[in-house]
């Protein structure tokens, strides 16, 4: 059902919308990914599309960019009906796409990447000279300054994204689609991106912003469309809505945006990392990390994705040994010389909710009951040495599912048939049910719907209140700030400082994530 609140912008309502989708339908087998989706986007606006994972946003965008063909429905650009056969047609019609994962050749220069596939002649050198001229004009017009001769892999992520935008504009994009563009950016880089988007809008470029972050919708868009379960449930003017209303529309019921944080009562130190370093094929992944963790507190680890957080979790959980340094867990010393594997670490009372739920946390083709004992298969309650009792697995899983509200509560269903949120609840249930003294949690709410996020956050806080020590690694800064008692910020494998909750503002943490340490924090290290 499409609500009646059609958005109107500026005085443009007389013109046909620059982009109009009419009754788009797309099925994948039994999954109706897009149900009668209609959308109108006015020229020169920033239009947001929000929705939870699996709401059909990506499918819709893929249809627009002609990765998929719709089963039915029409696409109009500036009033002209379009028949896209491939992405080349979409590009020709003026659609540009900036993917969540950049489509750049890392060891090419910026210029080479932009020219790639769009050379003006067989002669690369002359194509490059011609392109360089055009790009200089474009860059000036939109304020997108990039060094064209820099090698892409040497650029920070924010600049790589800028290259992607420039590439789309160079191909004549008038409608720019950005798919979750801020997932890999620091808060400051996000600010810069928004400045660029505003400049583009001022120049008449239309922007379609796909995101699940309501804050961004409120900050930058003119209008927003909400998707849920493959359908468009609302089209709203941003100024007329609120994050709470959007969240409710996305989930289909009222949600709590506040997790109900209360101050901790930390006790003894249960984990101490001393000068932990990791060098992998010549590159330093972790550089002299030291910190300690007390029972009954949540230590959040903030950082832009890929700054050593994943490696740190792997070392703490015993998946790999550190190159140097020592780890003391509940009084046991672990180091490069006396490493401990995941089983030994587990025996010390450490449970681990891994970042990669699909490859590590679960075995996707396994039934939920089988996945629910991964890592705990030696538990004597699950049968004898020669018999792994299916009924014991089943009842164990049914119990976890009841306690953690995993839906559907069917232990025999394959793990990959559960939604992201329910998969994560199952992993969390498994790890928490082992009554850990220390819980390592990586990206607990990545790809998880809002309803489940609420639940997971509450579980983590209540576990903390029971005296468990929690290390929370997340690239969602909001998550870190709302749950952590202390925040450690990582940049390029280094500890940029540990700050108390009270001092941890978006600005402070954002600067530290970017590698800037202010003297105040330095003193407290």
């Amino acid at each position: 059902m499409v609500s009646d609140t059609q958005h109107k912008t500026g005085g443009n309502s007389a013109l046909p919308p620059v982009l109009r989708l009419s009754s788009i339908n797309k099925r994948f087998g039994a999954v109706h990914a897009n149900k009668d989706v209609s959308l109108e986007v006015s020229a020169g606006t920033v239009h947001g599309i929000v929705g939870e994972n699996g709401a059909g946003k990506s499918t819709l965008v893929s249809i627009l960019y002609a990765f998929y063909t719709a089963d039915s429905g029409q696409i109009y650009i500036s009033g002209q009906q379009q028949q896209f056969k491939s992405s080349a047609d979409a590009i020709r019609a003026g659609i540009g796409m900036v993917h969540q994962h950049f489509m750049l050749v890392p060891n090419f220069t910026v210029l080479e990447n932009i020219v790639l596939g769009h050379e003006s002649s067989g002669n690369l050198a002359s194509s490059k000279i011609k392109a360089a001229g055009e790009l200089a004009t474009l860059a000036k017009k939109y304020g997108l300054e990039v060094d064209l001769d820099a090698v892409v892999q040497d650029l920070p992520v924010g600049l790589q994204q800028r290259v992607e935008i420039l590439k789309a504009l160079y191909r004549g994009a008038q409608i720019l689609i950005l798919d979750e563009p801020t997932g890999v950016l620091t808060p400051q880089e996000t600010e810069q991106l928004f400045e660029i988007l505003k400049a583009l809008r001022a120049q008449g470029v239309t922007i379609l912003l796909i995101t699940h972050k309501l804050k961004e919708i409120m900050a930058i868009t003119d209008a927003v469309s909400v998707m849920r379960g493959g359908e468009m449930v609302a089209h709203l003017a941003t100024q007329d809505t609120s994050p709470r209303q959007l969240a409710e529309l996305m989930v289909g019921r009222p949600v709590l945006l506040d997790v109900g944080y209360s101050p901790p009562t930390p006790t003894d130190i249960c984990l101490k990392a001393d000068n932990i370093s990791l060098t992998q094929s010549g590159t330093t992944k972790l550089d002299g990390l030291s910190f300690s963790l007390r029972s009954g507190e949540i230590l959040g680890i903030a950082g832009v994705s890929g700054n050593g957080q994943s490696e740190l979790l792997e070392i703490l959980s015993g998946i790999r040994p550190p190159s140097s340094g020592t780890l003391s867990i509940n009084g046991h010393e672990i180091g490069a010389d006396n490493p401990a594997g995941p089983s030994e670490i587990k025996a010390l009372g450490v449970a681990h909710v891994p970042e990669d739920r699909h490859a590590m946390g679960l075995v996707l083709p396994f039934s939920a009951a089988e996945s629910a004992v991964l890592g705990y298969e030696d538990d004597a309650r699950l049968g004898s040495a020669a018999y792994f009792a299916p009924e014991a697995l089943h009842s164990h899983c049914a119990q976890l599912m009841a306690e953690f509200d995993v839906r559907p509560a069917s232990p025999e269903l394959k793990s990959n048939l559960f939604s992201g949120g329910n998969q994560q609840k199952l992993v969390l249930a498994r790890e928490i049910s082992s009554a850990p003294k220390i819980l390592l949690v990586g990206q607990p709410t990545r790809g998880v719907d809002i309803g489940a996020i609420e639940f997971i956050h509450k579980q983590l806080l209540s576990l903390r209140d029971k005296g468990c020590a929690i290390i929370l690694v997340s690239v969602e800064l909001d998550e870190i700030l709302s749950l952590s008692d202390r925040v450690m910020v990582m940049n390029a494998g280094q500890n940029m400082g540990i700050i108390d909750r009270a001092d941890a503002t978006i600005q402070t943490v954002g600067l530290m994530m970017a590698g800037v340490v202010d003297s105040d924090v330095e003193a407290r290290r």
Partner: protein
Amino acid sequence: MNNAILPRWIDIFLLPIINLLAALCVAGIIIALIGENPFTALVVMLKGAFVYHGGLGYTLYYTTNFIFTGLAVAVAFHAMLFNIGGEGQAMMGGLGVGLVALAIDPFLPPVLVVLLGICAAAALGGLWGVIPGWLQARRGSHIVITTIMFNFIASSVMVWLLAGMLMNPGQMSPETRSFAEGVGLAQIHVIAGWLGIEISRSPLNLSFPIALIVSVGVWWLIWRTRLGYIIRATGHSEKAAIYAGHDPARIIMIAMAISGALAGLMALNEILGVQGRVILNFTSGYGFTGIAVALMGRNHPVGILFASLLFGALYQGGAELDFEFQSITREMVLMIQGLIILFSGALAYMFNPAVERIYLRLTKQGQADG
């Protein structure tokens, strides 16, 4: 749940049957093209495999080989290892039986010799599986390449030994001396004779019931033991296995040892059940056909039993075709076998999307009505 997934019975039974029918249709067209009636040919094949004098015995005798080699491929496959080396592992299994029997049959009672021989078959087959497993796990040499190479090595070792130090003195053919009287697995028609039941002579022997027991054992191992759980977890996701505290390299070696041992047991049927000595090339391609059997049987022991029976019937019935029809030659029969392998192995999932669509349409109607 609205996920495009077929129920197990369709995947395990219906799809293989559709594949088989497709293969038979193509074969039937070819038989019609050379001027024979495909239906008559089919009847001859079926009768040859199941009805004629001794036909069933021969069919089950071939089936036994396929069960062992099919199970071998399946166990490795659950660890996501493609063991192409069943042929070589079976040869080494035969060598194991032979070495034990030749060494001790003058001194020990036949029953003990047979038991030790069975262990040796599994051990040498397992060894021939575990070495490529080790190379994969610790050295990163791809298991497909190494198992193929190990087939050649096994073949050469057999020629070298059987034409050399193990060759029966005073004879020109590359084979060992016969084992002592009573060293072997009794043939079923002999056992039936003891019980006073008259059945036709065939090479079917006690290896067949052993194969059935081993099938149950493999099922138990894969789905009812912790080791099986860990093997499957490793196969689906090495990262998950590491996360759970297991060393994938170790699991790979264990899975390959079991796989090789199962292939090695194929030698029971040929060496202990029929030949009573080690001959050259007794494996005659059963190790390779085991791959098709496992694929068709969806790597499940029950599926493998049926697939083995099918291939057994095809071998035996095919021989009958060759015998009955002037125009259908041995090569023609090989082609039919090839078609079945093609449709049920290489093209195993060709009909999946179509069946999925039909199934969904049917069930959706069911839901709409309900």
